[in-house]
């Protein structure tokens, strides 16, 4: 048939008849799959069927519904599902089969067999895609009766969903009919019968069949806009009336009130279902006349739900409101004002956090559609609340801040909310007391959320950047430039915690800047820090000049602000040129090596590393790196600032490892060499964790850093052999550093890579278990535990050592180590059982002791592990 189509067609109906005779009585599923494919081709490629349509249908439909279970060990791999799908493709291939197929489908839907029902309903859905109203007309009443019965009585959710889908498909098929003035409109007639059978269930007081009825109606209504109008026009007024018939809870007895409110919630949820349907076909077709007709009652129902004492009712009300508000042109100004007032009230005064969260979320969704109403009413009310706010109302204060951030989803609202929050920040700083760090933190969280929300809108983003960054800097400077800055009021802003929480704000406000603004901003920021040029800051009359990079004791506070420079400059896109980059790098380098304050030194080192990571390849970069090396070598060798030098070394190494810079291996060697240093060794070992972990503020992809794929794997293959070597050569009192470093590297490595490398590392890991350092023990145990589960075969030969070491660690003075050791003992049970049985009695005896551990969390792990060992090799496991 593939190659001789013309010739076969010229045979006419003889070929069709011949094929029918051949296929008749076929039983082998392999042949059937081919036969179904051929029938489908006969139909679709236009072979002459002639008088044999019914025969062709009979010869295929006798297999429907497919009842076939593949024999065990079937080499052909034909599944029941394959046959079902290919037979369905045949049956639903042409409208010519309709008169034979539809009665068959109805018969199968009425059968007892679940699978037959399901298959029939799915086939019906498939048929509706190609049938016209003409084919369906005669069978509509019985189809509807069958579908309705299944939905009303069904036990299976899947069947119910399929029936609803079939109903939608039916109605959609009817909607496609071209209307002639004189013909009877099938769709209207069909929908009327649907309405007739379902509508009265919505009004019944016991509400038993409300959900199935509502689902049927919604399924029919979702078929097309016309169907929606027909059904919604009848159902919406009914539901609204029903809602009002279940009166407010307050004037009923206490027993009836909750019942009534749950009924009203059901009605409201059904309403919500109908209101959400128009979203399916977009708004462009949009005459929402149906909804416009019931706008008034709808609004009053929502209002009553929002003022109801029941939290569930409030939450559904908020969702209905969200849908109404997003339909364009539905709500008029006065409705909106009322809606916004309701939301504001829920946000501020509703005790239940669930409703107030829902209200905040709704505000965020609705604000872009109606920015005016939200700025005029909600933002104003929240701002007032913030100002009059009293010290004892912590939650309301927090809600205010959260809501202000949540509602800032439109540029014009951002314009209003940002100044409110900044003013609040100024107020907080002016009166700041020690207890205010919590408020400061929640304020910073809100500012950060707003920054993230406005990142993708260029207008909001640039406004936010221009408003917030100078203000934060101004406030921080003001605090830092006072005499005795670290004692003066306002010092709250200078605490490490406060400065650290400003970093994500500035960073988020800078990552998505337009290139022009980024250049402009950089041209202001760099001179501020290098030359103390404060002219662009608000309120820039400061008692003394800003010189964070100068020497001098009284400048300690100023140096801390370098972290803000880092937040900005390390978040810029890579193509933004940094003015005076060379000089800036030198100053940062000097500060990072020579500053007494570890906070400022680290900030400078990170900033330097962030810039080096993005610095274009070339002579200039080489020169900068050479400079850094020149500082590092003497700094690391001796002197009071060895720790700072190590910090710089680590951050620069990280910057270069990430971008595969050739110098990175030289620097890594230096770090590895320091593991043998008695003073810096432990810090260097921790540093390996820093090199491979993700930093939250700099050197990650979010801030445009140059991060290559698989740098961790590469680091691993390059350096682990050297670590192992170093360990063997090292003096005994620094061996722990190597183990700790190794365990950090392993912890950051993807597990599949680790499993393949295991054989070479296992001796070292076992040695690490005997190391006295709790940290090393812990990270080694955490490394071994997944390996026990994932690669039991590789570990199996070491059962004896593992059991001994794990058991001895259950005595550790550190709770975390005891817990990790017990988890490993539990994980041991996944090794092949025969190898474990010799240890069973010993482990069970030894685990009796941790069962009486003083810590509950340890006992819990011991119980699980011991229980599992009891089951080992025992019947019934």
């Amino acid at each position, binding site marked *: 048939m593939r190659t001789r189509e013309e010739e076969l067609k010229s045979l006419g109906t003889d070929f069709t008849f011949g094929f029918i005779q051949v296929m008749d009585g076929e039983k082998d599923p392999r042949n059937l799959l081919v036969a179904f494919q051929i029938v489908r081709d006969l139909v679709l490629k236009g072979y002459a069927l002639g008088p044999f349509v019914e025969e062709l249908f009979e010869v295929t439909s006798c297999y429907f519904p497919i009842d076939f279970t593949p024999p065990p060990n079937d080499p052909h791999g034909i599944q029941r599902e394959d046959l079902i799908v290919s037979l369905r493709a045949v049956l639903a291939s042409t409208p010519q089969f309709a008169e034979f197929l539809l009665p068959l489908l109805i018969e199968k839907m009425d059968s007892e067999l679940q699978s037959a029902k399901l298959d029939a309903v799915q086939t019906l859905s498939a048929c509706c895609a190609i049938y016209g109203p003409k084919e369906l007309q005669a069978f509509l009443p019985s189809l509807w009766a069958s579908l309705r019965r299944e939905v009303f009585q069904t036990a299976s959710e899947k069947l119910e969903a399929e029936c609803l889908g079939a109903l939608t498909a039916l109605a959609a098929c009817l909607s496609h009919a071209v209307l002639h003035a004189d013909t009877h409109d099938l769709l209207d007639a069909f929908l009327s019968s649907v309405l007739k059978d379902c509508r009265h269930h919505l009004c019944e007081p016991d509400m038993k069949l409300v959900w199935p009825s509502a689902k049927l109606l919604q399924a029919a209504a979702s078929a097309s806009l016309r169907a929606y109008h027909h059904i919604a026009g009848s159902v919406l007024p009914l539901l609204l009336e029903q809602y009002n018939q279940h009166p407010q809870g307050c004037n009923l007895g206490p027993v009836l009130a909750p019942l009534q409110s749950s009924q009203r919630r059901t009605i409201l949820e059904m309403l919500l279902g109908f209101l959400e349907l128009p979203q399916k076909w977009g708004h462009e077709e949009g005459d929402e006349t149906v909804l416009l007709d019931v706008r008034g009652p709808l609004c009053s129902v929502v209002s009553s739900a929002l003022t109801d004492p029941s939290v569930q009712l409030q939450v559904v009300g908020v969702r209905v409101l969200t849908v109404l508000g997003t339909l364009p042109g539905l709500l008029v100004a006065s409705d909106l004002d009322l809606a916004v007032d309701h939301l504001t009230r829920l946000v501020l005064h509703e005790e239940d956090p669930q409703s107030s969260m829902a209200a905040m979320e709704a505000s965020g969704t609705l604000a872009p559609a109606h920015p005016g109403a939200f700025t005029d009413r909600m933002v104003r009310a929240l701002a007032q609340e913030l100002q009059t706010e009293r010290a004892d109302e912590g939650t309301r204060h927090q809600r205010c801040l959260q809501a202000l951030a949540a509602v800032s989803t439109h540029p014009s609202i951002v314009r209003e909310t940002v100044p409110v929050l900044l003013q609040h920040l100024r107020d907080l700083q002016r009166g700041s007391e020690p207890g205010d760090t919590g408020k400061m933190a929640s304020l910073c969280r809100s500012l950060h959320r707003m920054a993230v929300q406005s990142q993708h809108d260029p207008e909001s983003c640039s406004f936010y950047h221009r408003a917030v960054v100078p203000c934060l800097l101004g406030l921080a400077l003001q605090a830092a430039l006072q005499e005795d800055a670290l004692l003066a009021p306002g010092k709250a802003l200078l605490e490490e915690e406060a400065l650290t929480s400003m970093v994500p704000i500035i960073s988020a406000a800078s990552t998505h800047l337009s290139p022009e603004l980024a250049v402009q901003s950089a041209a202001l920021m760099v001179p501020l820090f290098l030359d103390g040029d404060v002219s662009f800051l608000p309120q820039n009359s400061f008692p003394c000049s800003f010189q964070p990079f100068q020497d001098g004791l009284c400048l300690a506070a100023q140096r801390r602000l370098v972290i803000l420079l880092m937040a900005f400059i390390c978040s810029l896109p890579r193509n933004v040129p940094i003015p005076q980059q060379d000089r800036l790098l030198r100053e940062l380098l000097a500060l990072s090596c020579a500053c007494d304050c570890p906070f400022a030194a680290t900030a400078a080192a990170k900033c330097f590393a962030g810039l080096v990571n993005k610095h274009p390849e070339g002579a200039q970069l080489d020169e900068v790196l050479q400079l850094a090396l020149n500082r590092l070598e003497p700094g690391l060798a001796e002197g009071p600032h060895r720790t700072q030098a190590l910090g710089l070394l680590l951050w620069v190494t990280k910057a270069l490892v990430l971008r595969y810079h050739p110098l990175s291996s030289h620097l890594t060697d230096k770090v590895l060499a320091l593991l043998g240093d008695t003073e810096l060794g432990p810090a260097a070992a921790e540093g390996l964790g820093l090199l491979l972990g993700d930093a939250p503020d700099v050197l990650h992809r979010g801030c445009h850093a140059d991060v290559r794929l698989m740098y961790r794997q590469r680091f691993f293959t390059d350096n682990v052999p050297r670590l192992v070597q170093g360990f063997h050569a090292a003096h005994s009192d620094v061996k722990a550093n190597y183990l700790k470093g190794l365990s950090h590297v392993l912890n950051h490595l993807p597990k599949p890579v680790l499993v393949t490398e295991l054989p070479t590392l296992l001796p070292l890991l076992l040695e690490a278990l005997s190391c006295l350092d709790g940290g090393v023990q812990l990270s080694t145990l955490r490394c071994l535990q997944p390996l026990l589960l994932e690669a039991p075969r590789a570990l199996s030969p070491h059962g004896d050592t593992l059991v001994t070491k794990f058991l001895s660690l259950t005595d550790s003075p550190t709770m975390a180590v005891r817990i990790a050791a017990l988890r490993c003992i539990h994980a041991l049970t996944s090794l092949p059982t025969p190898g474990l049985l010799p240890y069973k009695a010993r482990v069970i005896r030894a685990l009796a002791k941790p*069962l009486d551990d003083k810590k509950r969390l340890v006992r819990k792990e011991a119980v699980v592990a011991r229980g599992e060992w009891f*089951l080992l090799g025992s019947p*019934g496991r």
Partner: protein
Amino acid sequence: MVGPGLGPALENANPLVFRRSGERPVTAREEDDDLPDAIDDREIFDLIRSINDPEHPLTLEELNVVEQVRVKVNDAESTVAVEFTPTIPHCSMATLIGLSIKVKLIRSLPERFKVDVHITPGTHISEHAVNKQLADKERVAAALENSHLLEVVNQCLSARS
């Protein structure tokens, strides 16, 4: 001892199912290395609530066979008393359930504890006989020598997949 699964039909085919209590939240005190945590009722209840019922794919907690209020522990005196309530008064699984609880507690508690497992008074027709069997150390030990019985107990104690 009554063997399990004597009749093919379930005795209580359609039991009432109760809600499981969530994992016990970890407190700051529990995370402090230095402070000791005493063994309390909830800890014992957590040990036995996840035991599987011998005939339903449900836990004893879901069937309300064990409840936290029916668990009493005294850490200082090293005693534990657990009452369990069979779902129906003529439940032939009562002994087996009691045995599972007892074995679970023996395996999970320090040796110093004296474990007492018995039926909630007035909830089973042969309450005394079952209690007597469960209290008899030698009969419990002998029951666990029976590999068929051990298998069923182990199935009750296996973690549900």
